[in-house]
């Protein structure tokens, strides 16, 4: 066992960096995971993720099923106290016992007492992540009871003494080679253990003997129906069936949130859980049992056959408090499928030892860890970049980025911060409530302020930005990594440039729009704004450019929610007058666009106003495609591919948030309709994710995430030479440039270059 730890190197092990209450452990864990676990995690999460896309694609009414599941969970959590009483009566009526454990200690003590009452020497466990939360094995082993983990992943972790790295595949960070080494070291065997089959047979034989001898079997539960006391148990190995069938005493441990009012309402979860979790139509075994079972328990020769006994341990351990929380009650809808982990680019790269705490990991892991433990333990939630790729993957539609932004807000308040961060907050007019945020967050969260001054003093700031001294200062005070190129500030902002571009007033404009001068376009990539104006003018659109004001994205991503709300309301107020004037809103930066289409839901008071923004904001190419279609024309009437300055072969990387709101497809469709050969990335995120990749603590991780994207470009060029790179997002543009050292343009710039200017 000691040997496997030595292999981790530099003194860090998954166990030693598990507690993120210690701030340094976030960065140390990232390094440990990148060095030791990266390839296995990447392979396994991406396999699960691809399988998930395939499996949910085969459910014909996937979206309706998700709505149903969401509604059932909302109702279940709202009526939880009543359901708990109903469930208790149902289990007792069948002769079982129910224990409501207020906390981990109470749960562990109860289970230990049941075991001791039966004079248990050996307990066999099916997979239960909740028992990991409770540290149950510690209690049982302390009482001299042998615990045999029978899920093969848990079996590995028990031998290696490591915390789980994934909620449904706890040993996902182990490659086959490392398992072989671990088994050979631990069991000192000469058996050839060089294949998955040999390893499985070896573990199976060891565990078969435990199943037959066990005095008590402990399982978790995926769901429990209150009306019938039925446990839903999802697995593939058969160990959970064995655990609940063979020993005379069955103890099921479950978080109280798993209770669903009726057995009938379990139906939508059956398909959703399997498809979202392992990418299967159903896993090998999904049991619905109302214990105690009718079959007599197993008895070895010479041993008396005992009566069956069943105990259901319902765990509170913070859940009832979460239920009262206006934000975090949503966590309790989680059915623990792992889809948010597998669809997360950061998680795919470092897994749950870095992007996770002592028990829970990934996007939903922060809220779980904070809710069932201490807020500080959820510091790893910093690895949620808000890219939002998990949002559409969650079978119960939990807005996971929003939970993490709120977690960040609460963590910001809990930190002690420097006078410098207070000064930055003050000059940049961050909201009073967000004032305790660290300097780095204030800087990135109020980027518009610093960008505005950077642009006003463009010549000076660009010169200063290039100096080693300035970079050292930014590195030190706001955590901006020195290896990142800084955006150079334009001499002229988009707002100023637009004043110089005259538009012949069309008598009958084809459409009326306002182009939102988002901070990243206005103070950064002005050329894409100018290109958008050129295309819109050519299409006969009446365009005005808005003021450049923040819409709140940057603040929101730093957990400065009060500030984000202020900015969102300000932007809404400014843009509302354009909407009233009958103008649609075009937004170039996808992260800004996603604010209007998605995040404003949380930030504006009036749902009706959010709905207007959601339905009247467009990405430029999305809008152009609609306009052309509405005019009854084709793209080739307006764009001529032979004018392309970059040839016909393109590689387009869509921004993560753009994909979530469904506005990436129109870009690809339009470019293809014009005649381009468009290859696209399938990565969930480029790794930059707004400010994330600029931060020095996360630079290595960001580049490791980006490696997949760079690789995909290289692959796509194998079939006939180079492709011009296109990206919609500012930070994706920077990431692609950093990884491939090539010019990257926005698709609207390409459209502007191939316009057929009539008359």
């Amino acid at each position: 066992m000691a040997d496997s730890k030595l292999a981790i190197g530099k003194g860090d092990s998954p166990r030693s960096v598990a507690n993120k209450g210690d701030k340094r452990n976030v960065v140390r864990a990232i390094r440990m995971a990148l060095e030791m676990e990266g390839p296995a995690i990447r392979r396994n999460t991406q396999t699960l993720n691809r399988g998930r896309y395939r499996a949910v694609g085969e459910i014909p009414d996937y979206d309706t099923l998700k709505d149903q599941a969401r509604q059932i969970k909302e109702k279940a959590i709202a009526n939880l106290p009543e359901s708990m009483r109903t469930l208790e009566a149902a289990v007792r009526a069948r002769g079982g016992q129910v224990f409501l454990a207020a906390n981990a200690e109470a749960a562990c003590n109860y289970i230990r007492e049941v075991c001791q009452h039966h004079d248990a020497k050996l307990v066999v466990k099916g997979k239960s992540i909740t028992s990991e939360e409770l540290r149950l094995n510690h209690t049982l082993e302390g009482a001299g009871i042998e615990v045999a983990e029978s899920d093969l992943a848990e079996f590995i972790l028990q031998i290696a003494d490591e915390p789980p790295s994934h909620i449904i595949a706890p040993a996902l960070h182990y490659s086959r080679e490392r398992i072989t080494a671990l088994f050979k070291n631990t069991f000192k065997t000469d058996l050839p253990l060089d294949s998955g089959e040999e390893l499985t047979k070896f573990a199976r034989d060891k565990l078969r003997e435990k199943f037959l001898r066990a005095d008590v079997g402990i399982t978790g539960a995926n769901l429990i129906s209150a009306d019938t006391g039925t446990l839903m148990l999802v697995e593939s190995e058969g160990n959970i069936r064995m655990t609940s069938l063979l020993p005379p005493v069955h103890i099921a441990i479950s978080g109280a949130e798993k209770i669903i009012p009726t057995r009938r309402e379990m139906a939508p979860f059956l398909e959703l859980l399997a498809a979202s979790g392992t990418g299967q139509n159903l896993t090998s075994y999904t049991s619905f049992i109302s214990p105690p079972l009718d079959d007599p328990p197993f008895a070895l020769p010479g041993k008396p056959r005992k009566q069956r006994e069943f105990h259901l341990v319902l765990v509170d351990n913070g859940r009832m408090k979460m239920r009262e929380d206006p934000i975090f009650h949503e966590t309790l809808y989680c059915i623990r499928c792992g889809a948010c982990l597998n669809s997360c680019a950061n998680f795919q790269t470092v897994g749950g030892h870095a992007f996770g705490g002592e028990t829970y990991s990934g996007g939903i892991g922060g809220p779980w860890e904070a809710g069932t433990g201490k807020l500080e333990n959820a510091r790893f939630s910093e690895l949620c970049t808000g890219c939002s790729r998990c949002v559409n993957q969650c079978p119960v539609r939990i807005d996971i980025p929003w939970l993490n932004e709120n977690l960040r807000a609460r963590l910001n308040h809990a930190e002690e911060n420097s006078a410098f961060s207070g000064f930055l907050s003050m000059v940049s007019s961050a909201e009073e409530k967000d004032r305790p945020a660290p300097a780095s967050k204030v800087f990135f969260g109020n980027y518009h302020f610093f960008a505005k001054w950077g642009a006003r003093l463009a010549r000076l700031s660009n010169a200063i930005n290039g100096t080693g001294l300035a970079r050292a200062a930014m590195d030190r005070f706001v955590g901006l990594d020195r290896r990142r190129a800084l955006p150079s500030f334009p001499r002229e902002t988009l707002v100023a440039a637009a004043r110089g571009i005259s538009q012949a007033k069309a008598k009958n404009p084809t459409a009326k729009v306002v182009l939102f001068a988002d901070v990243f376009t206005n103070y950064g990539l002005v050329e894409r704004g100018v290109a958008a104006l050129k295309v819109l003018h050519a299409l006969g659109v009446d365009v005005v450019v808005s003021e450049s004001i923040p819409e709140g994205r940057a603040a929101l991503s730093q957990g400065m929610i009060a500030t984000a709300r202020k900015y969102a309301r300000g932007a809404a107020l400014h843009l509302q007058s354009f909407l009233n004037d009958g103008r649609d809103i075009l937004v170039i930066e996808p992260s800004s666009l996603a604010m209007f289409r998605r995040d404003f839901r949380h930030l504006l008071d009036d749902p009706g106003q959010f709905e207007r923004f959601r339905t009247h904001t467009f990405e430029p190419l999305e809008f152009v495609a609609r306009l052309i279609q509405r005019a009854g024309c084709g793209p080739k009437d307006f764009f001529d591919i032979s004018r392309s300055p970059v040839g016909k072969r393109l590689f387009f990387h869509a921004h993560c948030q753009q994909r979530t709101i469904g506005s990436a497809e129109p870009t690809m469709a339009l470019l293809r309709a014009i005649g381009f050969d468009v290859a696209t990335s399938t990565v969930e995120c480029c790794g930059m994710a707004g400010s994330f990749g600029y931060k020095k603590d996360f630079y290595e991780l960001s580049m490791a995430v980006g490696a997949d994207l760079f690789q995909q470009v290289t692959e796509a060029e194998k079939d006939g030479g180079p492709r011009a790179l296109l990206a919609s997002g500012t930070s994706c543009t920077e990431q692609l440039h950093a990884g491939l050292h090539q010019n990257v343009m926005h698709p609207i710039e390409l459209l502007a270059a191939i316009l057929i200017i009539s008359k």
Partner: protein
Amino acid sequence: MSELTDIFETNAREAAASVERCRHAPGAVRQALERVTQKMGRIVVGAAEFVDPRLADVLRELPGVILKPADEQLATANAGITGAFAGIASSGSVCVALGPPLTAAASLLMPLHIVLLPAERVVARPRDLFEEACLGGEGLRRNLVFITGPSATADMGPLVRGVHGPHRLHILLLE
């Protein structure tokens, strides 16, 4: 109906089960079972619900069947035979009702599980078994296990079929 069984068969094979169509009559089932269990050794039989009652005799008389197995015989038998409460077309699963003597054991403990599934009990999707109108609403009341292919794991690196549960699942689709 025939379309459902076709979908079922395709998906069950996809899930690494083997499927054999067979007439729902004692003679045909006896022949099929004898072929599958040939030289198999000891066989444990769960109570056969949901099938032609005459099949009970066929099962009892099958070579190798242990009629009243002791627990240690359960642990070392080579094959188990059970009836199926339902089949699920969309996933190729068989749904076995637990409760009748030896059904749980015969569908779990042996390396080979043979399941007898009457074709008319194949439904479209798993959720159908949560409807009162489906198969008498029994799906809402019984202890059930949805079985999709043999037991499997991806915890040891590559996908391995055959872990704690059966290594092979053979479905006799009775028509």
